[in-house]
């Protein structure tokens, strides 16, 4: 029983992390039909930004709550700037080209940004464990859990609710839904698609950076962290269906629980269970759980 509970909690924590990382990716794909490889860079910048913020703020005796806020705000600010630079500087020149070409453009951006990270923060690695320590632990039965991890689950839940509410009940969300449904018709009805694109890309970038920021205390912030994230986030998004928010949530939960179960039961297959699950889901539902196959054009 204990291990089942542990699997559940571990799975939820991991799912929360995956959801936060994947939601930005799926949002950008849903609206702009761009599979954004540079999402990994947003994550990296978020993590490095948060690590810097933690380094500056903690150990000065200031109240800890401010540290969390600064960490997240700093990372998301970085994401915003980076997202706007990328969208205005590069992406807008390739709108309308093949989807594959746009993947390659974001891949190029990803490569460039990887080296920008080295130029800005140097090749060394950063530790930002203070927020994790400051949050403390809680005991449930015999299980010792970190409050930080539980906070992660809360953040992901709030984020999911906010997305749902934002898309369904706000003006911008409805405009966005119209653009997702049909870009040209939306433009014909007077929606400024260019602005929607820029805003969406910036929001996606901020979410990617947020993912990096909240993970920074749990990992060693070092080179190459973005590389793994992008593949992982893609797997999650593909399981749920590209461009679908519910899909990202479902994908994150499935992957999170599966991975936690294998870590506890058969740790040897941990690395590849995610992709195995993905391949399994895709053989049954080729375009993911929440997306229907498109009719082919003649």
């Amino acid at each position, binding site marked *: 029983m204990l291990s089942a509970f542990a699997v559940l909690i571990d799975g939820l924590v991991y799912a929360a992390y995956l959801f936060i990382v994947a939601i930005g990716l799926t949002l950008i794909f849903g609206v702009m039909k761009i*599979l954004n490889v540079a999402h990994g860079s947003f994550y990296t910048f978020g993590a490095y930004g948060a690590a810097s913020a933690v380094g500056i703020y903690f150990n000065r005796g200031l109240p800890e709550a401010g540290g969390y806020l600064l960490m997240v705000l700093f990372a998301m600010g970085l994401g915003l700037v980076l997202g706007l630079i990328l969208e205005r500087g*590069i992406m807008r*020149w*390739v709108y309308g080209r*093949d*989807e*594959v*070409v746009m*993947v*390659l*453009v974001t*891949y*190029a*951006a*990803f*490569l*460039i*940004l*990887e*080296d*920008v990270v*080295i*130029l800005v923060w140097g*090749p060394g690695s950063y530790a930002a464990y203070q927020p994790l320590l400051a949050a403390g632990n809680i005991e449930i039965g015999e299980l010792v859990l970190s409050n930080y991890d539980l906070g992660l689950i809360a953040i992901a839940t709030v984020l999911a609710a906010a997305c749902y509410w934002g898309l369904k009940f706000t003006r911008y969300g409805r405009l966005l839904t119209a653009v997702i449904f049909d870009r040209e018709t939306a433009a014909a009805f007077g929606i400024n698609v260019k602005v929607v694109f820029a805003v969406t890309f910036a929001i996606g970038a901020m979410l990617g950076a947020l993912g990096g920021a909240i993970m920074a205390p749990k990992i060693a912030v070092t080179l190459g962290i973005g*590389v793994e994230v992008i*593949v992982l986030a*893609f*797997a999650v998004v*593909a399981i749920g269906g*590209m461009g679908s928010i519910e899909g990202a949530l479902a994908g994150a939960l499935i992957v999170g629980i599966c991975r936690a179960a294998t870590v506890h039961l058969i740790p*040897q*297959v*941990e*690395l*590849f269970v995610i*992709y*195995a699950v*993905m*391949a399994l889901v*895709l*053989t049954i539902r*080729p*375009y993911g759980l929440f997306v229907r196959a498109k009719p*082919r*054009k*003649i």
Partner: protein
Amino acid sequence: MVWSDRIAAGSAFLAAVIAGFVLPDWMISLATIAFANGLVVLGLIVMWRAGLVSFGQALYYCMGGYAVALIGRWGGVTDALLLVLLGGLSAAGVAFVVGFLLARYREIFFAMLSLALSMILYGLLVKTESLGSTDGLNVTAPTFLGYAPHQEELLVALYFLVLVVCATAALLISAYFRSLAGALAIPVRDNELRVEFMGMSVSRLIHTKLVISGLLAGTGGALVALAIGHVDPNMSYWTTSGEFVFITILAGAGSVGAAFIGSLAFESVRSFAFTMLPQLWQMLLGSVLLLTILFLPQGLGSLIQRLHWGRKAKAP
């Protein structure tokens, strides 16, 4: 093939053979790796013509390499040609099996699903102690029909092996491009439903292309494994696939020769950049990729064509 093309291809091959006798060792080993990787790029071009980009070619590349290492270790086979053949075939076998899944997908789904498959292999290799885990495996020195060279002779012998394999592949693939199945690639890219209305099975066509490109990538991986004498899981990592895609974009899918020239250019620039500016290597790659996509969508090969026809050639 036009006569001028044949002469160009023949003289390029001759130049490569002569280079094997005169160039210093480090250049020969660079060219060996470059041409072997050119085979992988050629496989990507086969699919590119049908509008498919695979971000997981490293799967077959790594498969070919590991097949050579394992067959050499467990089966005791040392003959280079046999090893390369077995490496290519085992990768083609993998491509055949995963093809049943992959041939249903197009565009980014195809790209990313193939990426995920290569990451499965990466995960398996990293976690399997008996296959060397992250350290990888050493490859025993190969023999050539009983001839067992060492050091410099081995280097040159491998270079010529790579040349022969590449020339054969180039001839076969250009014959394939002229065949019906090869020529149908462009209609498939433009509108596959119409191709099906003509009575062809698109998924079978794409499946065939997958197996061909898997065979080429596996052969390339096998040759690289012999040339380096070592294989490790990074051969299957997605950044490896990314580099192959990069070379394909840079070279353009215009001709078979572009794959090898592009690969040679890439390896040369890499070895230069690694010594001169190691911190900026990826930035260099990214910038070149970006500029190529923005300003030369047909690849560097199209520059030559533009020179040929002056202003008549138009960007699409």
